[in-house]
């Protein structure tokens, strides 16, 4: 499979769901400024208007009827309506749905993620900064200045920490092929393993950077996968939370039973055991990359 970027490429045509909201409107402008082809927006009841030159429709159905080239959607609608917005995008035939919204109830997330998987569609998120293929386009909310076109594939569970690490990679002159935020919630559409495999198959990606955090077992599952498949491209990781006191809940990870996993040490061990280098500061990663590439 050949590609020069994953998830977001030259053919990406974007629908913005919740385009008339504060965040939707603001980031529509930033995406357009970055060169992303934002084709249409949806806000029920606001059909007929336009935002930054983008026509607004009452439903995804009417947006797709007018713009059948749309293949990607970005969702800014409030958490209460996110499940319905995603189902609407899927039913209309959209391939990739990037769910920016934070705070969606877990059960709604389970339903939407499973629905998309059963239809062989891709959900990025929820609670994700989105996807950026520097120089090609961004479907997300990340600050463009942190990124530059290059050869490192970045996949992350975190939002802002991704910008931090990516900026370091940009500053040493390597840049990124694509940067994917899988989302910070316990249940996500794409997971580390799937994005990792996309990067392995991506011609533009020469090395892969994983950005994780304590809690859950997403990093351990990736380590398992790499151990089974063997390291095909240099892979480096940065895990936040090394010094977080055990037993305290840091942010959104929630009270979900961790099944004995999820500490910084368990993640580091699992990844190193699979041949992944683990670093303790964002700038250490970019330095190490310079030695590899």
């Amino acid at each position, binding site marked *: 499979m050949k590609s020069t970027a994953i998830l977001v490429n030259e053919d990406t045509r974007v629908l913005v769901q919740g385009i008339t909201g504060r965040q939707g409107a603001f980031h529509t402008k930033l995406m357009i400024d970055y060169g992303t082809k934002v084709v249409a927006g949806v806000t029920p009841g606001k059909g007929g208007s336009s935002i930054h030159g983008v026509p607004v429709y009452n439903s995804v159905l009417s947006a797709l009827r007018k713009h059948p080239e749309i293949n990607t959607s970005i969702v800014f609608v409030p958490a209460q309506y996110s499940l319905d917005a995603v189902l609407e995008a899927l039913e209309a035939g959209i391939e990739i749905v990037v769910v920016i919204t934070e705070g969606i109830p877990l*059960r709604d997330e389970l339903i939407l993620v499973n629905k998309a998987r059963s239809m062989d569609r891709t959900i990025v998120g929820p609670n994700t900064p989105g996807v950026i293929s520097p120089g090609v386009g961004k479907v997300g909310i990340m600050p463009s200045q942190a990124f530059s076109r290059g050869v490192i594939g970045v996949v992350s569970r975190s939002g*802002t*920490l991704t910008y931090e690490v990516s900026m370091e990679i940009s500053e040493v002159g390597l840049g990124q092929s694509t940067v994917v935020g899988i989302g910070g919630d316990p249940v996500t559409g794409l997971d580390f393993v799937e994005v990792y495999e996309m990067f392995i198959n991506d011609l533009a990606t020469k090395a892969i950077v994983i950005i994780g*955090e304590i809690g859950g077992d997403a990093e351990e599952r990736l380590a398992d996968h790499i151990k089974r498949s063997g390291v095909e491209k240099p892979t480096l990781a940065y895990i936040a939370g090394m010094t977080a006191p055990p037993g305290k809940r840091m942010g959104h990870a929630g009270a*979900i039973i961790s099944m*004995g996993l999820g500490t910084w040490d368990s993640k580091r061990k699992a990844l190193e055991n699979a041949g992944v280098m683990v670093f303790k500061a964002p*700038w250490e990663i970019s330095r190490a990359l310079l030695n590899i590439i």
Partner: protein
Amino acid sequence: MKLYEYEAKEIVSKHGVKVPRGFLAASINEVRDAVKKLGGEVVLKSQVLLGRRGISGGIRFAKTLKEAEEASLELLKMRISGEEVKQLLVEERICVDKELYLALTIDRPRRAYAILASTLGGVEVEELVKRYPNALIKITVDPVTGPALFTSRWLVEFYNLSKDLEPQVLKIIDSAWRLVVEYDAELVEFNPLALSCSGELIALDVKIVIDDNSLYRHRGLMDKAYRGLSDAEAIAKRHGLSYVELSGNIGILCNGAGLTMATMDLVKIYGGEPANFLDIGGGASSDQVREGVKLLLTNPRVKVILVNVFGGITRCDEVAEGVISAISEVGSVKPIVVRLIGTNDSIGRGILMEKGVKAFSSLREAVATAVELAR
């Protein structure tokens, strides 16, 4: 959000799950009344939301009224993980033949719910997973349709129970699933689930945790979300901030849990000690930032404040305005080290500059400066 044990037991017993007879007591008098009504031996259980109650001595057994009075006198003075014990659940003591474990929770890798069951009840689940994985089974629960019929059959077989108990097992599973559907529970745990000497299944302890993100559809539970929080945590929560008290002297405020933890890690690496974890989340307003900074300014343990914001959906101008108005409201003279970068960062830096606050763009420099100032 966690419910108290007595609340959890009230709900599941309405669903037909057997729990020990018991009464809530907030004073020695009420304990006395409860013991008299129950007759026989009793268990006195501290009603707290945090910490590990058993290990902390928060559960006592009493054979006589006198023993019960003495024990509750002590318990009602206790603090467990910083939380005052204000109420006790006084329950009849159950003769137990076997202790089991049963929980319904999220199975992240399968993107579903799962029932976890073990023949080793009374042990914490993390312990079970690590040390006795063979004594544990996991049965997937579809997030829409709920537990399939075979689930109770499997459990009866796995627990090695008499077939007659299948209806009771079914009631327990149904109760857990109803809690998911009606209350958006993310954890329902029966531990221990006792097989009593008289051959009944009785839930000796029940733990229910509700998904915080779902609270908007459970208005009745919303005010309960503040129980068990410290004053600072409650203030933070009210403003949509995520706050955890730590033991150091460098107050940390960032956007995003990952970046906040990373900043804490770096402070440690540079030799400093974080005073807290404070995540303003994504897209915070200047008001939220102001309230967050005020929390740190008014915390006497905080010597230096380190603000680290990488704007994405959060805008640096909003952050700068929040910082400035917190300073002017509190009038504090604590040093504030700000690192601002990302969306609208030049506007933000301009706002800070105007008020004489210097903003770094390098994370390394900001952390080094904060640690230096805290010495």
